[in-house]
């Protein structure tokens, strides 16, 4: 392969990377990467959680290497200018100027939003405000942008009251207002339901239509494969062209035939005319629920946002007392919440999982077992906050599984998991069902739900 980048003036961004390593980390995370981005193209880079996709994205956006901290050797060509990086000379990059050429939307769109503006219009104008653009011009540009990207209906909304998908498109628009040549987007569809994903895909199409090149970092290339101009696979720190066999693999992985639901096993959970409401609100979150669960059964809960799925799970776990109705439960429950990484607080993975388990207890042997089951043994001495996102979610699951709950309750378990993680999750669910337990699962991921659940209960609202 030709090492030198072609200095065609059609390429808006080029990366020639020999090695990149973080501060205090001896091993280089990325090695020998060449990427060239032409105007209006769609480049997709996929890889497992922890493979370094986000790192690569940050490098393209000029946000890494941090001055005086990380080490990058190589060069970046941006809009005709070549900037060299080496261990002896690290240039001090003007991040704000770089962002005029290459913008980046991080995995959590909320990190990009300023959090200090009261309306979406002001949020969009934030970059311009910092540039000292006169007010009349700002109004005009915001109005133009909103029209072009079809955001007019969101302009007066409060940025912190937006849904996940809306937050992402507002952040994309805020990025687009400075009219960069390239936008790097990290996991644009993660955690979104179908409707929200559609919004983001439409926005991406609009952006490409006006000539912005997109570099998408995604775990799964399903939505992008057809339109991509370049498909890459990031593995062991270096880019390889995406093999089409892998495409086939992804599709067949989920299509396992479902076993029929067991109809004669004992009931583990029975809820009759359950009414759930939160203190302080007059409308009940769940007005009337009848639910039964048998041993060995996996139940899916489906419904729109706000239909009370999480509330039901919390009630079964004992966090919320039903206002009326009867609920009978046999065995212990374990609940994996959506923001499960919020509860992590120990210094190492091992300590986190062993938390609350006295040394003499019988559960002690489970700790090593659970870590092995979820593929976390190599991380045993790592700080939970230094784990890649997928591993962190699995760690939260490990803290639930170590107590061997009879009924496993999962709230959006696939969020944050990459494909390997999802496989581990399936294995865990199968294991729980095999030993006579039961699983209740609430998720946006229709495919996952249909491939795992025996039956689906629709929450009506």
């Amino acid at each position, binding site marked *: 392969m030709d090492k030198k980048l072609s200095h065609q003036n059609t390429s808006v961004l080029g990366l020639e990377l020999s090695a990149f390593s973080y501060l205090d980390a001896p091993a280089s995370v990325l090695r020998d990467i060449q990427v060239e981005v032409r105007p209006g193209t769609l480049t997709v880079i996929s890889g497992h959680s922890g493979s370094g996709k986000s790192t690569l994205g940050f490098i393209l956006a000029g946000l890494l290497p941090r001055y005086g901290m990380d080490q990058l050797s190589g060069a970046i060509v941006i809009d005709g200018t070549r900037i060299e990086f080496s261990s002896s000379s690290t240039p001090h990059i003007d991040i704000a100027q770089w962002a005029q050429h290459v*913008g980046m939307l991080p995995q959590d769109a909320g990190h990009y939003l*300023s959090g200090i503006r009261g309306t979406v219009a002001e949020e969009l104008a934030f970059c311009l*405000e910092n540039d*000292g653009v006169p*007010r009349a011009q700002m109004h005009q540009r915001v109005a133009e942008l909103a029209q072009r990207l079809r955001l007019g209906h969101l302009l007066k909304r409060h940025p912190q009251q937006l849904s996940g998908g809306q937050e992402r498109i507002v952040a994309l628009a*805020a990025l687009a207002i400075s009219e960069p040549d390239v936008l790097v987007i990290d996991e644009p569809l993660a955690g979104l339901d179908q409707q929200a994903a559609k919004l983001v895909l439409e926005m991406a199409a609009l952006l490409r239509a006006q000539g912005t090149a997109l570099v998408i970092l995604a775990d799964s290339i399903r939505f992008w494969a057809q339109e991509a101009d370049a498909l890459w696979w990031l593995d062991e720190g270096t880019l390889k062209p995406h093999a089409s066999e892998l495409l086939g693999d992804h599709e067949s992985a989920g299509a396992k035939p479902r076993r029929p639901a067991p109809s004669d096993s004992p009931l583990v959970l029975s809820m009759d005319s359950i009414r759930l409401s939160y203190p302080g609100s007059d409308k009940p979150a769940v007005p009337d629920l009848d639910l039964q669960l048998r041993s060995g059964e996996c139940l899916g809960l489906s419904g729109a946002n706000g239909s009370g799925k999480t509330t039901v799970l919390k009630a079964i776990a004992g966090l919320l007392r039903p206002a009326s109705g009867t609920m009978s439960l046999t065995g212990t429950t374990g609940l994996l919440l959506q*923001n499960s990484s919020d509860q992590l607080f120990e210094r190492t993975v091992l300590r986190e999982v062993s938390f609350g388990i006295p040394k003499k207890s019988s559960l002690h042997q489970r700790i090593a077992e659970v870590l092995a089951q979820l593929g976390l043994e190599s991380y045993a001495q790592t700080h939970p906050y230094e784990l890649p996102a997928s591993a962190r979610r699995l760690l939260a699951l490990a803290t639930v599984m170590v107590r061997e709950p009879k009924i496993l309750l999962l709230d959006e378990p696939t969020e944050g998991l990459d494909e390997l993680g999802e496989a581990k999750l399936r294995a865990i669910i199968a294991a729980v069902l095999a030993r006579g337990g039961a699983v209740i699962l609430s998720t946006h991921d229709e495919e996952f739900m249909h491939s795992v659940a025996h039956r689906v209960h629709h929450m009506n609202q």
Partner: protein
Amino acid sequence: MPRLPRLHPFTTLALAVAVVTMATAASIWWLSCAVLALCFLVSGWSGHLKKLAMLSGAMLLPTFLSLLLIHGLIARDASPAIAEWGPLRVTNHGLEVALALGLRTTVLVVVGLLCGLLIDKHQLVAAIDLSPVPPQIGYLLAATLFLLPQMAEKQRQIGEAQTLRRMGTGSGLAGWFQRVRLRAVPLVLGSMQDAQDRAVHLSARGFPAAGAHTRLRTVPDSSMQRGIRWTAVICAVLGPVVILALARLGGR
């Protein structure tokens, strides 16, 4: 607050400062009471009466009690005592001092709280951003005000998640410490990591602005309000000086 005319936040602040400094300097009980009455009237008009009363009451009750303890009970001046038990000595003068000091603090608290209730946070931040102070101040004020409820909510969620782990039921100091650790550490970890993640994107958007910066939001202002502000600031600074000088002359 639909009925109050749209005052520039700085006008409200300037008037408040002027009122507090002059009332404190004058130290005439009926004047201070008149100021308090005016404040409660304004709060009633704008719909914040109950909140103002409750907040100021909660803050002032311990203060009054403390002052009564310090000055009311242990008066060491020469005036005749109302009651005496050992080291405790209650005099009229002592009680007067305690009440006067309490009234002084009350004016500060009530006027200050009223300001806080009347001023719209977004307008205040925009006014600060549009003024010559460094842009970091507006950001820090806004970020804190909007972050507080988010973090309180997060704290609640963490509490819920930790309840599920069925720990933190130990007794005694060790158990209490465990519970504190369970609630505090995840909040600190999560919010600090969050702060670090946000920083780089904020820089990428050009914050803090090196040169001139503007705001999309307009803060309604008028030359009359500017005049009022200047007058208020001058009164706040010179007023007490004049009042105290007059008092001293009158006292001689």
